């Protein structure tokens, strides 16, 4: 079956982040000018419009070229940022949703299915946060439960048997912290999912597309190639969580974000990720189709580079990749 397309985030509905306020002011002026011009067709506004548009584009570009880790965290969490369903719609020519862990339930925080990307057949798995109140509730804000991770394990094992490369899209603030999740073995499910990634005899490419939150992210990101969007974040704990433990107040989250080194640029330097995927100027939420195209190109190239490698080579690549992390750092 074809999964229903996710709602496309429209630029018209954009909600500005605090640090985007100067851009917002110019864009408001542009909109105002356009409305006025529409009412009074005699006035030639194009020189002024061109000037403002240039100014706004430059300001947006310079703002996004120097985002702080905390600002990137906000971009990565932006309500209009594309999520799993948006990428399915824009990047994959076909997607057949598969559901359930065969043990307890179908967890919609983690989705997966058979997908085709530029003619390549893959198993696609990822977190879906939802994009409005109803869908956020249904997808539990992208916070997976044990049954979600066990579904991922099932799909990875199936992919392995049928020779389908595994592509994961990671976007979660973390695995769900709840009584039932603990009772059903949240920790075990995450551990087994990480193990399932490492056991794959088919290529695996993971992309951190929004938030890579702790163990709930690692469980789907233990791949031989780990990509990360330019403004995505990936960390061991949320900046708020880190701040409330080490600084004893969540208000120090910006400092914690800085200290933890959670941006794509930092992680590239630490050898934790392999490739930074560019986003449209102003972030993926400004132009989801362009973001998806950028991601599709990167994933396609990685899959092509891995194609033809045998199971043992792929597993060895993955194992060595992780064992090497941290080994090259100055002692």
């Amino acid at each position: 079956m074809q999964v229903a397309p996710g709602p496309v985030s429209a630029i018209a509905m954009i909600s500005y982040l605090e640090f985007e306020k100067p851009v917002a002011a110019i864009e408001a002026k542009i909109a105002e000018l356009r409305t006025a011009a529409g009412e009074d067709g005699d006035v030639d506004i194009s020189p002024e419009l061109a000037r403002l548009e240039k100014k706004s584009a430059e300001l947006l570009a310079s703002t996004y070229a120097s985002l702080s880790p905390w600002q990137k965290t906000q971009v990565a969490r932006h309500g209009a940022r594309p999520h799993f369903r948006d990428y399915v719609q824009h990047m994959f020519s076909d997607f057949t949703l598969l559901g359930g862990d065969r043990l307890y339930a179908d967890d919609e925080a983690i989705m997966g299915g058979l997908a085709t990307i530029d003619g390549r057949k893959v198993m696609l798995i990822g977190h879906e946060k939802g994009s409005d109140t109803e869908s956020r509730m249904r997808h539990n804000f992208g916070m997976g439960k044990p049954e979600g991770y066990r579904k991922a394990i099932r799909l990875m094992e199936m992919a392995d048997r049928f020779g389908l490369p595994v592509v994961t899209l990671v976007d979660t603030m973390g695995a769900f912290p709840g009584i039932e999740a603990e009772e059903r073995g949240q920790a075990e499910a995450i551990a087994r999912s990480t193990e399932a990634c490492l056991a794959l005899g088919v290529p695996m490419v993971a992309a951190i597309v929004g938030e890579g939150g702790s163990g709930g992210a690692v469980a789907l990101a233990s791949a031989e190639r780990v990509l990360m969007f330019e403004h995505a974040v990936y960390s061991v704990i949320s900046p708020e969580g880190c701040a409330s433990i080490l600084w004893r107040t969540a208000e120090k989250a910006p400092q914690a974000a800085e200290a933890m080194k959670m941006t794509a640029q930092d992680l590239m330097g630490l050898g934790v990720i392999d490739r930074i995927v560019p986003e449209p100027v102003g972030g993926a939420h400004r132009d989801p189709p362009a973001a998806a195209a950028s991601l599709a190109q990167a994933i396609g190239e990685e899959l092509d580079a891995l194609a033809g490698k045998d199971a043992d080579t792929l597993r060895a690549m993955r194992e060595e990749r992780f064992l090497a992390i941290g080994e090259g750092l100055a002692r």
Partner: protein
Amino acid sequence: MSWLSRVRNALPWGDKRETPDNLWVKCPRCQEMLFTREYEANLSVCPRCDHHGRIGADTRLEQLMDPGYILLPDPVVAEDPLKFRDSKRYTDRLKAARASNPHRDAFTAAFGEIEGEKAVVGVQDFTFMGGSMGMAVGNAFVAAAQKALDERCAYIAVTAAGGARMQEGILSLMQMPRATVMTRRLKEAGLPYIVVLADPTTGGVTASYAMLGDVHIAEPGALIGFAGQRVIQETIREQLPEGFQRAEYLHKHGMVDMVVPRKELRETLAKLLDYLSPAQAA
């Protein structure tokens, strides 16, 4: 030795090694004042309420292994790779932890025997920065697993951790897949991997190597879980059930094979090792 002579020995004009400060310990559960010696002779378990106290790596190794085991060298890793500083420098926190601990970090492993059965035992020490998992813990875990692979023997990991070593950021998180690479290798080599979950085992440690054993043994009353209780309460805004995330609760929910009192731990491990001898085929 009588009660009186024990007290006398511990007085300042008696045995110089004993001061009134360490003569008594207070049980954190029942608040009973206990003689340190008696408490330690009872494997740091309260004789009154059976509370299993937290113990350091050396004590644990002594309790579990036959005499003559060899400590594996502490791994050398990049220290403070992120130049992390909150209210204190991470390097100062490390210094302080090392001042009161014989080891350089929170995971110490040894190779030897348990009742004659060859094994590598790795022990995570909660008293060292909450047992938190950073690169040193990860590398010590990896090295211990490698030793078991080299010796073709069982690997026993005794876990205890409040969570991640946040001061190492993402490098702390990366220890989850790194350790899992090694538990997979043990599995493929047909070697037994046994986990002893001590109080507390939480966060990324639970969600990686603590839950991947062939056999999971929990110590009585140990707190074991993925998410912290405060985080769960803040998320769901409900009362947590009685005994939530305790060893017995995990046993009931099928996450551990058995809850074993500390005084039976050694013999239980020996028995398991006897059954789970390294597979010949591999």
